[in-house]
């Protein structure tokens, strides 16, 4: 859907990389036409703009995804660019339904003069995250660019995995229950606090983690009842819900008080005037679940160490197609789609 507003500009702005309406317009207007419209016959391809592609192979599905990482600062409370690069791709595979990672690739571009010790630290956390996720890196690429030509490090990972049934982000139906696997906004707020040296009370830490284990638990408990998934990275919970509502052509009603937000994140967001629902997560999934499977899925997620704060946050409506409505506990309003990330280079 091109709304005509997102990409009127003749130069690329930061908003075009922010995961919201402007980025979707850029992809639709510039990238897809050059790639034959992104069609993938019989599968889920570029045109679906899902978290990854799904290609039928025999009686199974191959899931493929790729992600580049440019976070600033490179090391932040709770993680670093290495952990982020592994988790970003593992999580995209997981929310497409491939919770067992067959292989990852890892390409790195380093700025001339980057300290060796820093690079060793990044690779140590790449290794640790791979072990956590059970994901082997099987090939890679290394480049160095001149001083000032890039800022520090750029990492790209790609991944493949197989599954019996891909889970798109477009299959919600009225009555489906929405579940989030834990607190939202942790990563975005941690980066903001680290970058601006905000001396806020409390422990603002990124939630960056591989979620293939917790997603596996959910899928295992559901018997096909998990019908849609997304990992709410850039644009946060709000962007993820909007994409799911628009692609599925349903309304979504969210109970604000049911959405888990750590008190530190809520405090910082009140102070800064930034909605935690638009702040990125890097270790969470949003799931649409058939109502009869919701209790079992929620219990299975909560039994996993990364899913203890999971909650049922809302449901799908047969009215208001494409809209996300927030029940604040005081009244209801539309949850507006973020127009851009409140701060760039978060992942």
């Amino acid at each position: 859907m091109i709304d005509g507003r997102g990409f009127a500009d003749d130069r690329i702005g930061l908003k075009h990389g922010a995961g919201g309406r402007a980025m979707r317009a850029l992809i639709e207007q510039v990238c897809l036409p050059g790639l034959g419209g992104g069609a993938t016959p019989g599968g889920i391809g570029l045109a679906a703009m899902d978290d990854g592609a799904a290609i039928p192979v025999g009686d199974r599905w191959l899931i493929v995804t790729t992600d580049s990482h440019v976070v600033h600062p490179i090391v932040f409370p709770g993680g670093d660019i290495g952990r982020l690069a592994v988790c970003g791709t593992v999580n995209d595979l997981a929310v497409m339904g491939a919770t067992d990672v067959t292989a990852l690739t890892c390409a790195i571009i380093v700025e001339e003069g980057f300290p060796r010790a820093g690079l060793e630290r990044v690779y140590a956390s790449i290794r640790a995250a791979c072990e956590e996720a059970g994901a082997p890196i099987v090939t890679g690429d290394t480049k160095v660019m001149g001083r000032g030509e890039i800022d520090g490090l750029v990492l790209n990972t790609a991944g493949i995995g197989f599954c019996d049934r891909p889970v798109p982000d477009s299959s919600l139906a009225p009555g489906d229950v929405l579940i989030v696997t834990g607190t939202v906004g942790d990563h975005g707020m941690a980066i903001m606090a680290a970058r601006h040296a905000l001396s806020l009370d409390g422990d603002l830490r990124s939630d960056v983690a591989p979620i293939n284990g917790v997603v596996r638990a959910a899928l295992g408990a559901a018997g096909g009842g998990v019908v849609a998934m997304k990992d709410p990275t850039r644009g946060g919970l709000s962007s993820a819900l909007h994409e799911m509502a628009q692609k599925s052509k349903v309304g979504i009603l969210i109970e604000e008080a049911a959405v888990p937000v750590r008190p530190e994140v809520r405090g910082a967001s009140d102070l800064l005037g930034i909605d935690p629902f638009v702040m990125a997560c890097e270790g969470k999934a949003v799931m649409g679940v058939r109502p009869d499977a919701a209790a079992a899925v929620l219990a299975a997620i909560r039994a996993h160490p990364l899913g203890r704060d999971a909650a049922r946050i809302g449901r799908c409506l047969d009215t208001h197609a494409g809209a996300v409505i927030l029940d604040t506990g005081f009244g209801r309003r539309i949850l507006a789609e973020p127009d851009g990330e409140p701060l760039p280079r978060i992942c």
Partner: protein
Amino acid sequence: MASPDPRAGFAELKFRDPVRARAMVEAMGRATAGIGRSRVSLMHVCGSHEQAIAKYGLRSAFPSALSVIMGPGCPVCVTDAREVDEGVALARQGVHIATYGDMLRVPGTVMSLADAQADGASIHVIYSAGQAVELAARLKEPVVFFATGFETTAVATAAIVLEGLPDNLSILSAHKYIPPAMDIVAATPGLAVEGFLAAGHAATITGWGVFEPFVSRHHLPVVVAGFEPLDILAGLVKLLELVRDGAPAVVNMYPRCVTRAGNLRAQEALWKVFQPSCGRWRGIADVPDGNLALRDRFAGLDARTRFAIDVASLPKSAVSVTAGACICGSIMAGIKSPTDCALFGSACTPEHPVGACMVSSEGTCRIWHQYGGHPDLGGIA
């Protein structure tokens, strides 16, 4: 120590308790029914009140007969095009301009400060009056502080003036004073506002007593309210009860911050530096005593006396068809809503604002846009 349950945090805040909120909404329903008319209109005059009403979705819970309108409560929005022109002209004459970020994109007659900046003028965004002083000390070239806002920020401007400005810093005051504008709105023909919700933060300075003459002049009740959802609901309940009882009075529903006398030290500074003068409020009218001008003894600091501001030199341009369709004036006067505007959300967005109300984070259009416009949220089972 066990970590607090993230799912419990929301309701723990005393002034955001949905259970009490529901009780207040019911009280609003009773009071509105007691008034017995099919439409009751109340006005608030503060962008922060509108922010909270929109953010918490309060309007969807109001009785259907109740209409809560935002009046001229956005200081950036009511800054007149002519005042923006003065800032733009000064900037184009080569003077550094220091101002609050919200002002940058507010349209003047022909261009905004942001347009002037794109043409090479030197515009500096500051976050406090004190930063204007720091900027002037650093630049050592002529700096003009384009000072905007209601009595809250005007006090901060007064404070730097009284502390003594660097020789190269002068003030272009576009400060506004809310109480006289309430008089204008209350007397607007065809605007059937039956009571006013006054802004708690401004009242911490002026004191709630400042509204007593207004009440006796217009026989309309005024309730001072804070900015948490329960503050606003409690304020509206009280206001509706005063309307129902035909008892115009000032009631302070924000006693944890506001007193009758207000902040005397701040008032002393404010009136030592500024005097009320008649000025144009964008979209509203000429408001007698609605502007705050520097007193004569500070004329040496006044950009309007220090510089020959050549507004006539600005390039002429016809008003565009789009801008001609903008109804910001009627929105600020409380006569129309953003959804009455053909441009709202289509030709006029925060990225490409046409009118002042879409520029400022305190503007009605910007707030409504941020919280999803004002669609019909009925029919959800």
